[in-house]
Structures are given as structure tokens and as C-alpha cells.
């Protein structure tokens, strides 16, 4: 059996990747503290519960990233001759599906609160021997859980662009939207304090819609990635121009009469086939194929294990 060659990030990106790993570890520690702080003041507010669950769910992308970071280096072996790049996609799909399911649950739960006319209450708590309305503590906790992620998200987005990492990008997007969740939950808490019993459930519904939206978008992307759709930029905004670039590299080669390229994404790397029709008397074809294969991989660090296939003609 022939195993796929090992893949290594370029040296300068190794440093970027290590930075991303550190940032994700930091995220997990910070999120754990935010989850604990919110849990301490949860009360009976539906919106607080939604914000809390969203914080718990935002642990998933960093975890998926770190799991993938651990597996990404594993060389291909007899059992997995294509290596472990797809583990990223599996982790990503699992995390997104959890997000979608949880969003749906909170949506249902909050809608039922409205339907049943359930009135949430926020009473007093004691802090250093003083009686404090628990709502103020909730708002403090929400500020702590809502503001730092915005900065974290920005930093992650920069790294995601450099690494072309979609899990990191999804994580950054969730972090960047966190302030909106915290803001909605604050409105819910203030709504309860103002005697508008429905405000809390409405805020929770808004938050859950946001989670459902995130979850749906991520499940879609994860499924598309696993189905080998055309490679896109890290933010899924547009098709990656690399297919055209490889074709543009092949066609002017003296031994090439025609060329077509097909690529797919596996985590960080792009793999696929380059179909080449040689000119009338190309010379030493095996050697030319070998040299061309290496030249393709030198075009971009992401191109890895692109097979050059020699054909008598290109169909279609």
C-alpha cells in the first residue's frame, strides 16, 4: 500500500499555529470562568439560561480546533493511508450539529415560557453582607461573559485567515457575536426588573435564533466540506483561485498540450488531481510528471499530494 506523504506547515505558519493553539487554550480557560460566573447568578431567567448554554456551546469550536491540532501532525499509516486531515471535518460537523440542536431546544423552551405565561422572578442576593438585587449581579456577569470574546474573536479571525482554518474561523465568528447574546440577555434581565415578564423569554428567543442560525450555517459548511465541494476561502466567501492558478501554471509548460485540475479541501490542505495531455513527443514522461508534481506543491503551501494524471485527451 502507498501512504500519502507527511504534511508539514511552512515554518512561519507553524509559529502562527502555535499562537492559535495558545489562544484556544486561553479561550477555554476564560470560557470556563465565564460559565462558572454565570452559573453562580443564573436565577430563573430564561435569557440568562440561554446565554449560559451558549457559553457552554462556544467551548466546542476551541475543543474541535485543539483536537484537530493534535491529530493534524499524525503521519498517514496502514489503517489511514490518507492521513488524519479529515478529523478536522468530523470534529467540525459534530460541534455544529450540537450547536443547532441546542439552539432548537432553547427556542422551544423559551417559546413554551411565553405560551404558558410563566413569569420569571429575580430576587435579592447577599454580597459581602449587603443585599443586592440579583439582576445587577447578572448584568455584571453578562458583561464579563460578553465583552472579552469580542477581542478574542478578532485575534482568532486574523490567525484563521493566515492558516486558512475554517474551525478557527467559525470559533472567531461565534466569539465576535457573543456581545449580542450578552446584550440580549441583559435586556431580558432589565425587562424582568421592569415588570415586563415577557421580555426575558423574548430575549431568550432572540438568542436561540442566533444559535440556530450559527448552527445551521456551520452544519451546512461542515457537510459541504465533507462532500468535497469546490475549495473556498477560509470565510467561505468565494471560491479559492488556486484551481485556476494550477491550471495556469501547467498549460504553458513545454511538455503540456492541455490541462485540467480538480481540488478538494481536507482541513488545511488541498488535494486532488491534475489531468495533463502531453504534446506529441514530450520526452521522458515519468520524469516530467515527477518534476511537475513537485512544482505544483511549490505553488502554495496548502497544495499537498496532487496527483498528475497523463491522458491521451481531455474529454468534454
Amino acid at each position, binding site marked *: 500500500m502507498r501512504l500519502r506523504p507527511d504534511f508539514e506547515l511552512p515554518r512561519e505558519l507553524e509559529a502562527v499555529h502555535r499562537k492559535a493553539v495558545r489562544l484556544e487554550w486561553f479561550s477555554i480557560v476564560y470560557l470556563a470562568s465565564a460559565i462558572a460566573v454565570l452559573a453562580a447568578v443564573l436565577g430563573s431567567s430564561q435569557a440568562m439560561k440561554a446565554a449560559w448554554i451558549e457559553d457552554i456551546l462556544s467551548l466546542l469550536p476551541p475543543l474541535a480546533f485543539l483536537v484537530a491540532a493534535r491529530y493534524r501532525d499524525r503521519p498517514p499509516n496502514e489503517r489511514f493511508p490518507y492521513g488524519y486531515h479529515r478529523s478536522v471535518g468530523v470534529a467540525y460537523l459534530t460541534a455544529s450539529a450540537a450547536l443547532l440542536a441546542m439552539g432548537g431546544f432553547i427556542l422551544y423552551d423559551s417559546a413554551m415560557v411565553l405560551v404558558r405565561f*410563566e413569569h420569571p422572578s429575580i430576587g435579592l442576593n447577599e454580597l459581602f453582607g449587603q443585599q443586592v438585587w440579583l439582576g445587577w449581579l447578572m448584568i455584571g456577569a453578562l458583561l464579563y461573559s460578553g465583552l472579552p470574546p469580542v477581542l478574542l474573536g478578532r485575534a482568532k479571525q486574523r490567525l484563521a485567515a493566515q492558516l486558512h482554518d475554517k474551525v478557527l474561523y467559525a470559533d472567531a465568528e461565534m466569539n465576535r457575536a457573543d456581545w449580542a447574546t450578552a446584550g440580549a440577555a441583559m435586556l431580558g434581565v432589565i425587562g424582568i426588573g421592569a415588570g415586563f415578564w415577557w421580555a426575558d423569554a423574548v430575549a431568550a428567543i432572540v438568542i436561540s435564533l442566533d444559535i440556530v442560525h450559527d448552527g445551521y450555517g456551520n452544519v451546512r459548511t461542515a457537510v459541504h466540506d465533507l462532500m468535497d465541494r469546490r475549495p473556498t476561502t477560509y470565510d467561505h466567501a468565494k471560491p479559492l483561485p488556486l484551481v485556476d492558478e494550477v491550471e495556469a501554471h501547467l498549460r504553458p509548460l513545454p511538455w503540456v498540450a492541455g490541462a485540467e485540475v480538480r481540488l478538494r479541501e481536507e482541513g488545511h490542505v488541498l488535494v486532488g488531481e491534475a489531468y495533463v495531455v502531453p504534446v506529441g513527443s514530450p520526452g521522458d514522461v515519468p520524469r516530467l510528471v515527477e518534476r511537475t508534481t513537485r512544482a505544483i506543491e511549490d505553488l502554495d503551501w496548502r497544495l499537498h499530494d496532487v496527483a498528475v494524471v497523463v491522458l491521451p485527451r481531455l474529454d468534454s
Partner: protein
Amino acid sequence: MRAASVLAALVVLTLPLPACQWPRDAEGTLDRVTGGTLRVGLVEAEPWVVLDDDEPGGVEVRLVEELAGRLDTQVEWVPGSESALMEALHVRAVDLVVGGLDSSAPWQDQAALSRHYLTTTTVLAVPAGDGGTTVDDLQGRQVAVEGGTADAERVRTFDVVPVPVADVADADGPVVVDVWRLDDLGLRGLDATVSTSEHVVAVPLGENAWQTTVERFLLTRSGDELGRLLDEEQP
């Protein structure tokens, strides 16, 4: 765009609020009760609510009477079972339910349980004259404990043999008893907590001003005052 709309909603929500009352009630219970009538559900639970005589008594009844005095309110007592009163609270047929409720009571969907205003514990205790007795010395020995209570089973974790009695005040030797009764019964508590109870009262859901008023009243009761009220209820 989203930031702007959230901020706008925040301003719109908070602007019309008068500065005087925060948080506010969803159904205006505090305003109705103040200078009006307070309907209080009573669950019989000595020493918190005692319904032996025509007039209710007990620690929590006394507390409610004091609160009512401050709010210039007539109290209307409504004795009933815990289930019936919680349902009444849910539909706002009463404004407050008292009766030895514990913070772990499963009524979260029907009522708002207050912050606990008092924590009581039961301990293993020996007569005060019983010099150096420790928990270890009680292993395998008989201990008097009020029959039919959870403590009667829980105390087995200390490897003692529980003996159910009607009132531990009549028992000789080691007993399981509330810490607040130790002095009166001439007992010495050991370093062995059998159970802990966080005492709460229940108010209707969504009545934040009323709830915080009740909570603030209860939380500012001094330990001495609660101790005195408990002592008055000694059998």
C-alpha cells in the same frame, strides 16, 4: 447595526421607569398589599407555623405579622396543604406562603422561593455533663431521634442505632437535635451535622418588588431576633 438596535431597545425599555421602585412587579403585588390586605398561605410546620389555636402562631407567623405592621397591611391567613397553597400562589390567589419551606423544595415552576433567611442544622448531641464524649464514642450506641423524620435514617451514617421518640427533650443520653435547642435542653453538640435546612418563604412568580421587599425584611432580621422567636416556640 445590531449594536445600535440593542442599545436603542435598552434605552426605550428603561426610560419610562420611575426611579422610585426597582425592580418592579409584573402584577403590582407590592402596591396592592401596602395599606391593603395581605393573603398569607400557612402550612402547618412546627415551630415555624403552629395552627393549634384559633390564632396562628410560630416563628414565621410572627415574622409575617411584623412585616405586615411595617407595610400597614391587614393579614388574611389561609391555612392549607403545601400543594394547594403553591397552586394558589401560582394563580395569585395568595401573596405569600410560609411554613418551614426549605430552599430545596421542588416548587420552582409554581412559585418564587426567596433567598434563605436562616440556616438551621441538626447535630448529634450529648448531655452537657457528659465530659469528653466524641462522635467516635457513640459508634454502635443508641441515639434518640424524632421518629418519622429523615434524620432518623440519615443519622445511621455515623454508625449509631437510631431510636425513634416523640420528642427528644424527654430522652436521656445522646440525641439528634436542632442546634438552637441545645442550650435549653442542657445538651452539648458534637462535631457531627446530621442535616442542614435553608429556610425560605414563597411568593408569586414575577413579583420582583414584592419579593425583594419580603427578602430584604427577612434578611435584615438579626440572629438574636430569630433566636428569641425560636425560643418562644420551645415545646
